[in-house]
């Protein structure tokens, strides 16, 4: 029981090392290994979350070295996101098998699963890391594997998009590493809790503000906050669909979760620097909501549309955090989890459509509702959730953020939020119209079959979770409450 915490990240990393060796020429074996590792992570995450609910946050000292000197893994409310990470990963892997057979060249398939496992290990380690340097290392594991995964399908658009993603990501990583270096030089420690305690004692305002600025800028590039989002649409749209689901649902959240992790360090800082950061984030978030939704409205390619919708949704989350109001921060943190569910539903459903029909624009996909009813049902539920209509998971976060904006006395942000929701509603109508009410534009659409069961089941399960996430929204909110209270200026 004691050792579950390191194992939750180690199992996928071990599978990543074994997959290309054992799966050489036998990609099905590599796939099986991946599914086992993801299932293992899910089991461990559920057990750890159960312990979190019963006993409160706990730590694990790697190699038995105690906290400020050794490496600390910490499981708190934020780390409970591992359940979502592992669950989405398991479903994406199940889905991936048939999709990869068509989209990934055979000699690369074992490596593809290996990269997915590195990515899973990185993400899980990232949310459980208790010190700054491991935060960086796990972030890089997840990031570097993501760059490679974008290009996994081959093709020149994907290679270009991957390189653009790599350059943006690597520059932001350098900024983050630099800021970690500044914090280490100031305090002589790397453990997050220890750094937070020592930073207040040093009284060094300017270098600490520099570190806060560097970390915020770096993490916001990773989160693709407008106007730092330029790398995102191409990368997310040209990656293989299961990878798009992972990137849009989970990997962008590295920026948000990382920022939430480092924020308590600066709670001792004079309020001016923090206040400026909050204010800037709130405005950028509000602009991102509108800009992302507008850009999504003008896309023909269904995956580009979803990618721009991610930009818009990150806007909601950042706006909620930037308002520095407990109600809005609750909405933002809950929306991180719900957006992960919603966006992976949407990308997997869109991937199933592309896989079965070979088309990817709304015009070509007309009439899909008749030939692939279940996939289109899941996609419709996902879009309903992304709009934020009441019984779905998307409603919860947006409602809390809007409520927080009003309570904080900033109605202009509530207006921006509503305007974004209305714009998104337009593209919901566009998708529904194309799928259900228009005559097919392509003759081949008439003979298309429904997606195979191994792809359909994960999509439908995720769509069901999009609804359940809204109906049982109380549970994550209660779990995240201690986290929100801990944020400086947010509780």
């Amino acid at each position, binding site marked *: 029981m004691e050792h579950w915490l390191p194992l939750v990240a180690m199992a996928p990393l071990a599978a990543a090392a074994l997959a290309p060796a054992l799966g050489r020429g036998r990609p099905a074996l590599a796939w099986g290994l991946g599914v086992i590792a993801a299932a293992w992570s899910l089991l461990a995450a559920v057990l750890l979350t159960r312990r979190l609910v019963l006993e409160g946050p706990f730590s694990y000292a790697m190699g038995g070295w105690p906290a400020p000197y050794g490496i600390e893994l910490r499981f708190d409310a934020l780390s409970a996101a591992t359940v979502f990470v592992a669950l989405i990963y398991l479903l994406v892997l199940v889905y991936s098998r048939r999709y990869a057979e068509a989209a990934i060249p055979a000699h690369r398939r074992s490596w593809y699963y290996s990269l997915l496992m590195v990515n899973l290990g990185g993400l899980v380690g990232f949310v459980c890391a208790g010190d700054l*340097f491991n935060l960086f*290392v796990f972030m*890089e594991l997840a990031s*570097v594997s993501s*760059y*490679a995964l974008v*290009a996994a399908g081959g*093709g*020149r*658009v994907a*290679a*270009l998009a*991957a*390189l653009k993603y*790599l*350059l943006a990501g*690597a*520059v932001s*990583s*350098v900024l983050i*590493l*630099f800021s970690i*270096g500044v914090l*280490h*030089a100031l305090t*002589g420690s*790397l453990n997050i809790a220890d750094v937070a305690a020592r930073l207040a004692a040093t009284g060094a305002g300017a270098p600490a503000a520099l570190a806060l600025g560097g970390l915020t800028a770096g993490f916001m590039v990773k989160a693709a906050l407008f106007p730092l989002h330029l790398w995102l649409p191409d990368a997310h749209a040209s990656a293989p669909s299961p990878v798009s689901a992972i990137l849009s649902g989970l990997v962008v959240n590295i920026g948000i979760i990382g920022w939430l992790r480092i924020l308590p360090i600066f709670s001792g800082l004079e309020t001016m620097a923090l206040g400026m950061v909050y204010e800037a984030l709130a405005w950028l978030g509000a602009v991102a909501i509108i800009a992302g939704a507008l850009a999504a409205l003008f896309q023909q390619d269904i995956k580009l549309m979803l990618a721009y919708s991610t930009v818009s949704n990150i806007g909601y989350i950042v706006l909620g955090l930037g308002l520095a109001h407990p109600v809005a921060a609750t909405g933002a943190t809950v929306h991180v989890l719900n957006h992960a569910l919603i966006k992976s539903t949407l990308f997997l459903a869109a991937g199933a459509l592309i896989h079965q029909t070979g088309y990817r624009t709304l015009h070509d996909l007309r009439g899909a509702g008749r030939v692939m009813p279940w996939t289109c049902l899941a996609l419709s539920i996902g879009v309903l959730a992304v709009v934020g209509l009441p019984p779905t998971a998307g409603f919860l976060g947006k409602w809390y953020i809007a409520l927080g904006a009003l309570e904080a006395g900033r109605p202009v942000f509530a207006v921006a939020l509503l305007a974004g929701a209305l714009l998104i509603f337009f593209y919901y109508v566009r998708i529904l119209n194309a799928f259900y009410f228009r005559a097919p534009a392509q003759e081949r659409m008439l003979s298309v079959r429904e997606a195979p069961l191994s792809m359909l089941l994960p999509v439908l399960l995720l769509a069901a979770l999009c609804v359940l996430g809204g109906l049982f929204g109380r549970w994550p909110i209660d779990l995240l409450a201690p986290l929100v209270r801990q944020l400086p200026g947010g509780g």
Partner: protein
Amino acid sequence: MPSGLQNLDYAAFVVLFCIGLYMVLARSNLVKKLLGLNIMETAVFAFIVTSGMVDDGTAPILGNGVAGPFASPLPHALILTGIVVAVSITALALALIVEIHRQCGTIEADELKGAE
């Protein structure tokens, strides 16, 4: 040491960092962009390694007749890991650039924009 020269290493770090950032943003050739990224990374590594320096400090290795003060070994250990990360990013980027060259016939960013 005159006080103006005391932070010479930080000034050198800032200059290197800016050169790297300029190359990433302004150069059109993808390999040069990557070199700029490497220069930025080197600048940050140098900054973190020098932050472990202690005046008149010696290597922190135990043995006969060794006395403090010691330089902090932790930044070196961190940067070793940092270098490994940087190498893997460079390798991946070079592989992608080779792939781009194979598919598009050029590695100039402005020509690639026209080709899309």
